[in-house]
């Protein structure tokens, strides 16, 4: 049996706004393996947060999961597979509410929106524990203190009664992690958990997350736009551009031999500590307006290697090796597609 926890197939999430439809997630395939860390990277607006929200069925209005499957294996590791499709679930139904915050939990991009300013940190963790377990209030409080201690909060027995606004950014992020871990989830989704923090705090949080992942054998989906963070934490990397996964492989392949022109361009545009570059190579142009997506390959207007067909044919996934795939016509044998797509 394979080790897949979640298999996302051709997921589409669209926003139906007054100005038109935004295809925020536009046919995403992703496999999350148990106990591994997958990093989702890409520039602002490419659909990272929306894709992750879809995994928990918490896409905001006017967004909807319009197509695809999110096959989740609820069964214990190594045991009988018990596969359910999250994409089919009612976002308000009991089924997904049982999973959310328990089997799959999330650390959000904006810590202040997910920790309520009205309640103490402890109460918020305790509430989540009571919702999903049969523990008593006292037991839940003890567990909350234990969790806060585990994520490196000093004097956890006192800080448990603090309000979030009294904590520093790093402490708040640690409490969020404690809350997310409170029911021992199978999957932890972390959406830019360290972006707002200092590098020193970031380093501590990243190490904390890898340690916890090992001890809980948790699957981690880590969203970031910082390629440095990706290189530190990821096992696998998926590069996103305009709602699509354009390249996917293990972290070493992505950094050592990227194939997609977008991945190559991203890596060339960042300053590095080890080598001083004379000039950075910026990607020309900018991410297009979501209402005016280019036809053909979505990257073609900015791609240094684009050729005539890139304007008309949408690239499909090409498997370069069993664990390396790209969506780019440079690697695709598209001759037959031209013939068939012209007939239609």
């Amino acid at each position: 049996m394979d080790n897949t926890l979640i298999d996302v197939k051709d997921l589409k999430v669209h926003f139906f706004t007054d100005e038109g439809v935004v295809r925020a997630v536009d046919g995403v395939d992703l496999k999350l393996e148990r106990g591994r860390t997958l990093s989702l990277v890409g520039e602002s607006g490419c659909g990272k947060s929306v894709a992750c929200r879809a995994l928990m069925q918490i896409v905001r209005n006017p967004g909807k999961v319009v197509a695809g499957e999110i096959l989740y294996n609820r069964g214990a590791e190594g045991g009988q597979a018990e596969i359910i499709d999250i994409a089919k679930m009612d976002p308000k139904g009991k089924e997904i509410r049982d999973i959310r915050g328990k089997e799959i939990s999330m650390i959000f991009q904006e810590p202040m929106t997910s920790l309520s300013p009205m309640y103490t940190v402890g109460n918020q963790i305790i509430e989540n524990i009571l919702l999903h377990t049969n523990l008593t209030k006292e037991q839940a409080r003890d567990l909350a203190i234990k969790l806060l201690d585990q994520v490196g909060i000093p004097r956890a027995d006192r800080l448990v009664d603090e309000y979030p606004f009294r904590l520093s950014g790093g402490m708040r992020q640690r409490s969020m992690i404690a809350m997310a871990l409170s029911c021992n989830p199978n999957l932890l989704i972390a959406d830019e958990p360290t972006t707002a923090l200092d590098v020193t705090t970031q380093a501590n949080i990243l190490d904390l997350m890898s340690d916890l992942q090992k001890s809980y054998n948790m699957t981690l989906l880590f969203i970031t736009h910082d390629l440095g963070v990706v290189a530190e934490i990821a096992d696998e990397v998926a590069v996103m551009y305009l709602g699509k996964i354009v390249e996917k492989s293990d972290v070493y392949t992505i950094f050592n031999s990227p194939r997609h022109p977008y991945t190559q361009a991203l890596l060339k545009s960042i300053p590095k500590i080890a080598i001083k570059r004379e000039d950075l190579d910026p990607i020309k142009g900018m991410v297009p307006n979501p209402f005016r997506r280019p036809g053909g390959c979505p990257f073609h207007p900015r791609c240094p290697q684009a050729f005539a067909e890139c304007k008309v044919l949408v690239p499909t996934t090409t498997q370069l090796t069993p664990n390396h795939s790209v969506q780019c016509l440079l690697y695709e044998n598209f001759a037959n597609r031209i013939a068939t797509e012209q007939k239609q």
Partner: protein
Amino acid sequence: MTAQAPLTPTKTVEMRDENTILEVNNLKMHFPITKGISTRVRGWVKAADDVSFFLRQGETLGLVGESGCGKTTVGRCIVRAYKPTAGEILYRNEDGSVVDLAALKPDEVRPYRKDIRMVFQDPYSSLNPRMTVLELISEVLKVNKLESSDTIQTRVGALLEKVGMRPEYMQRYPHAFSGGERQRIVVARALITNPRIIVCDEAVSALDVSIRAQILNLLESLQKEFNLTYLFISHDLSVIRHICNRIVVMYVGKVVEVSDALEIYTGPRHPYTEALLSSVPLADPNGREGRQRIHLEGEIADPSNPPSGCYFHPRCQYAKERCKTDAPELRDLGGNHFVACHFAEDLKLAAVIK
């Protein structure tokens, strides 16, 4: 060399040498803490507390350190958005004369506002949404009556082209632009007065990698073209490495290390610099298993209630008894490498670049 400053006749000011355009000496900026509407001062936030460094003509000096260490405060003192509590900010005019900006009265500062400009942290909040690009860029000229309105339009158009935007855009409002374009407008607004020094406060921090690269390249080419001097404030040490000639490291309102850029990465001499650099994620997974990170325990100190002795001692892995009581001075270790640590000569610190 000694120069007579016309606007501070009370004393003769000296700067280190002719290549120095700005020299900050023992700068302090303390903010009063009051509660509610009461004016009783309950204490002081020592946002900048004895900061010294200098800027050479045409260079880019990086100012780094954790959030709240006082980087923006120092920048705002230099452009005299704040009147410093104490210390000197010596500025060398184009004719070679030297003036202490810290000592000037508000109305005496005006002539220097065009020479020293600041690019602010957030491109979204720093542009008034009700003003057109033309108005935004030329505002400073009008306020300071620096140019007649008929030539302004031509100037703004030419400047927009310089920062890579179409002159036609000058009648539009900021909301019609992306983050990168707004940052170009902000840069154009700083350039309109033909400044000599620009304080860039996290000028690229809010931008995506590809746009960030565009703006960094733009800043570098403008520097060459106009012989600009930059004080580049950032918490991103990869960006700092790319753009800076020299680096100043701050911790809780104090300068702890000043050195050539490369030396900070190949041979840091202050324990805080060592820890800060070891936290930077490297965009290279190869060999990551063997990498050792220094963990800074505890929180950054509170600038209204700093620890005794060396402010860094509670988090420093090398701290000894003396560090708890004696505050280390910023000392020249030779080769223009300045460090404020009692044991700088003896410590063997790890570098990020071997």
